[in-house]
């Protein structure tokens, strides 16, 4: 599973341009899925059929897209002015290397050297307007040979081990994709619809149409989530902690998770001795925010892997946490179905 993460993490997949990620996932999923299809927005649906499904449908999803930059303007001197795609703190961009456009040409986000910067400049935070990507072009025309307005840029981070942890970009949510690919190898007593969604980072968009298409009995969202466990003098709580196991969400900014699903996840984890932690309420949003409001309402829940420094060039996660997420899903999916049961269809009354 960590090898799969290592394969997916470096791929460019800024929201709206997930094709490179989708191609690799489709290739990996093809061995285990009975059917695969792509919808008009680019969501990838992989169906694992059950012998005796009776129309029961479970949607498990993870988003393929990641935050990044989009080229908004090319200066006369060939520098690229960019805008954020998804939630990016401009501070994480400074002095980074990025891969730009379809051909993945290298770009450098420059920062004035310390020799030239004034002390007050060094304490000021940049805005996205202050940041330029330098692709080595010396004029507008030269830049146009390899870059266009609308091209996206991602970090060039290598995936590698750091002590017991692994480092890479886009763990939010390639780690969810890696777990979901693993789940496709399992057999379930209902149809498993593994959905790799698009455009989560720009407003939970792909999941909205994916859930409408499937109208499932329940939806489980797999995520890589915020982890803020660095030492802090104040006793104010953490969103999650690395190494403390699978993260169960009770509610975030986008969804109140179905209480039956949340209590089932907790109950199974306790019974099976699977380490888990509850995410701090009301932090972040997920595809469940879209899925649960679909049709007559789809019972939804979220299981995440804690990742330090998400939405930045280099995230860290603990492979043990990823294993825990997979164990929890294997152990609980059938009971999650029983907890909510078959939904009536969303067709209107006559």
């Amino acid at each position, binding site marked *: 599973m960590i090898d799969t993460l290592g394969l997916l993490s470096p791929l460019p997949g800024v929201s709206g341009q997930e094709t490179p990620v989708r191609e690799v996932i489709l290739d990996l999923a093809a061995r285990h899925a009975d059917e695969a299809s792509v919808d008009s927005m680019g969501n990838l649906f992989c169906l694992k059929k059950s012998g005796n499904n009776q129309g029961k449908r479970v949607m498990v999803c993870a988003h393929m897209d990641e935050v990044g930059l989009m080229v908004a303007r090319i200066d006369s001197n060939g520098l690229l002015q960019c805008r954020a795609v998804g939630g990016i703190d401009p501070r994480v961009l400074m002095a980074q290397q990025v891969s730009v456009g379809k051909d993945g040409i290298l770009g450098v986000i420059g920062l004035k050297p310390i020799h030239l910067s004034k002390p007050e400049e060094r304490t000021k935070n940049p805005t996205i307007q202050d940041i330029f990507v330098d692709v080595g072009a010396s004029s507008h025309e030269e830049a146009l040979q390899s870059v266009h307005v609308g091209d996206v840029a991602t970090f060039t981070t290598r995936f590698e081990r750091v002590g017991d942890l692994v480092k890479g970009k886009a763990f939010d949510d390639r780690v969810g994709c890696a777990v979901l690919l693993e789940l496709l190898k399992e057999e379930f007593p209902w149809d498993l619809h593994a959905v790799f969604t698009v455009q989560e980072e720009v407003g939970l968009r792909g999941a909205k149409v994916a859930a409408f298409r499937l109208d499932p009995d329940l939806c489980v969202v797999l995520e890589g989530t915020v982890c803020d466990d660095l030492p802090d003098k104040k006793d104010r709580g953490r969103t999650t902690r690395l190494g403390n196991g699978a993260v169960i969400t009770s509610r975030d900014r986008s969804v*109140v998770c*179905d209480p039956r699903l949340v209590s089932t996840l907790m109950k199974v984890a306790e019974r099976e001795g699977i380490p888990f932690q509850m995410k701090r*309420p009301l932090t972040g949003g997920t595809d469940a925010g879209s899925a649960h*409001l*679909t049709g*007559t309402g789809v019972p939804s829940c979220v299981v995440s892997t804690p990742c330090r420094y998400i939405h930045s060039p280099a995230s860290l996660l603990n492979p043990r946490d990823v294993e825990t997420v997979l164990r929890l899903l294997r152990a609980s999916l059938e009971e999650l179905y029983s907890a909510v049961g078959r939904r009536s269809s969303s067709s*209107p*009354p006559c």
Partner: protein
Amino acid sequence: MEDLVRRLSEAYGPSGAEDGVREIIREEIKEHADEIRVDSMGNLVARKRLADGKVPRIMIAAHMDEIGVIVTHVDEKGFLRVAPVGGLSALFVSACTFVFQNGIVASAGVEPLAGNNVPSMDKLYLDVGASSKGDCPVSVGDIAVYRVSFQSQCGRWIGKSMDDRIGCAILATLFKQATQGNSDLYAVFTVQEELGCRGAVTSAFGIDPHIALAVDVTRTGDVPECLPMNVSLGKGPAIKVKDSGMIAHPAVRERLVHLAEEKNIPYQLEVLTGGATDAMSMQLTREGVPTGCVSIPSRYVHQPGQIVDCQDCLNAVKLLDAFLDKPPFPG
């Protein structure tokens, strides 16, 4: 209706935990319903056919949930850090007493502030009297609501969460008393309105109504030095023209105005500059639903002691009853 308003106002039911409120309403109306069910999000849907034949499905929504604060952390000494559930400002929280579902009461404390600053949520904590994390009787994820007892005086009702328990009381009363009319009534008591009108999204999709109305509160412009607004307590239910989430369908609005004048029911027109109701969600359901809203003027919305006028509420029932009899898009 007053006894129902009292019970609903005092009931515990923050967004996502509306069960207690739902049970009060279900008990109140179940005898009068042709069908009654709870959908997968927790909305209570009660149907009553007021006429045979081809009559429009009319969905009237009032939300059961109220604002509150959710525990995000219990520190070693047993103090609680919280985040708002719905639009609750730190200023309101800082001087209030709260109660959890299990009856545990909490006082709000504020860390020292520099100068005359207004507190922010991260400077606030709740104190249940616990002396350590170990003996704290509530945990992360538990939600507390204002602790206020209901009072009837001066022809007004004063209590917590008139937003929107007063709407629930009006809708339940209407549902019980409506016996004839030209509509197929779906009274929907929704969940999670305070989190973005969520319950109405899925319930309206399931019902697929021909016409929809929300019954909710609106603010007033009749208190000292307030933002001007052409709505006052006691001058009748307000017929919404627009708020930040919806522009009422002109035919629905005009029918409400016409009926109020015909039946001599006092009314006011409402243009609300901030805020939205379940009407926002219902209007954009499927191919679109002609939607309006009857608002109850309320002072101090989202504060502990909200005040509404009894006559406004009784008149709202009359106005809605008239609407069910003469909907703007019959059959």
